[in-house]
């Protein structure tokens, strides 16, 4: 094998290795979306019904939301799991080298994941904390 060919194949191997690394920013964005959805599930009783009540929205369909109440601990656990892993990926894991032109090489790619994670954090705090605090001044 000539030196030029060897160099090309080494470059190719390096590019392939970088490209096969899981894109951390994309993964964190997906995790943060899962966290937001799970936090909304945890809010289904009773923050969402309370908000609907304040807005004057009513309908027998709301009882489908309140029926999720026994699963609230599951939603909360899933949320905390997503948040824990998501924050770890975004803030703690050493930055992997991003392949040129991929999503994670773009400067703002980590920001979407961070916004999603903090949104989910606020949502789960409201979902779990508001029902404890609100009856005190209702």
């Amino acid at each position, binding site marked *: 094998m000539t030196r030029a060919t060897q160099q090309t194949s080494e470059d190719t191997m390096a590019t392939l290795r970088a490209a096969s690394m899981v894109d951390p920013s994309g993964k964190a964005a997906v995790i943060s979306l899962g966290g937001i959805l799970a936090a909304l599930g945890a809010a289904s*009783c*009773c*923050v969402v*019904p309370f908000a609907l009540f304040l807005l004057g929205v009513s*309908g*027998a369909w709301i*009882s489908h939301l*309140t029926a999720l109440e026994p699963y609230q601990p599951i939603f909360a656990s899933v949320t905390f799991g997503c948040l824990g892993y998501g924050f770890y990926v975004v803030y703690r894991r050493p930055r992997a080298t991003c392949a040129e032109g991929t999503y994670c090489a773009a400067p703002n790619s980590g920001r979407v994941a961070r916004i999603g994670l903090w949104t989910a954090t606020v949502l789960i705090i409201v979902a779990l904390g508001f029902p404890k605090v*609100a009856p005190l001044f209702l």
Partner: protein
Amino acid sequence: MIRRIIAGAAIAAMALPLTVQAAEKMVVLNVTNANCELCAPIVQKTLARVPGVKSVKVKQSDQMADPVATITFDDAVTNVTTLIAATTNAGYPSHLAN
């Protein structure tokens, strides 16, 4: 003079059934899907908004139990079906306690 007395008595006699009808009734409802801290206040406020309701008390013996709503209402203005529909439309179906 006598005619006025008779007329007055006739009007009072006609009005009497109306006063008897506009009576206060009390009903106790068991509310389902509502075992959380915020649910009892929502049920209470929803029922208090129903026209004709005079007073609502919602009691929950503990976190996991269904709340029990004791409602005093004017049965000329509203009825049990309307009250049950009101809680159901807030997301908390209810039924008469036995």
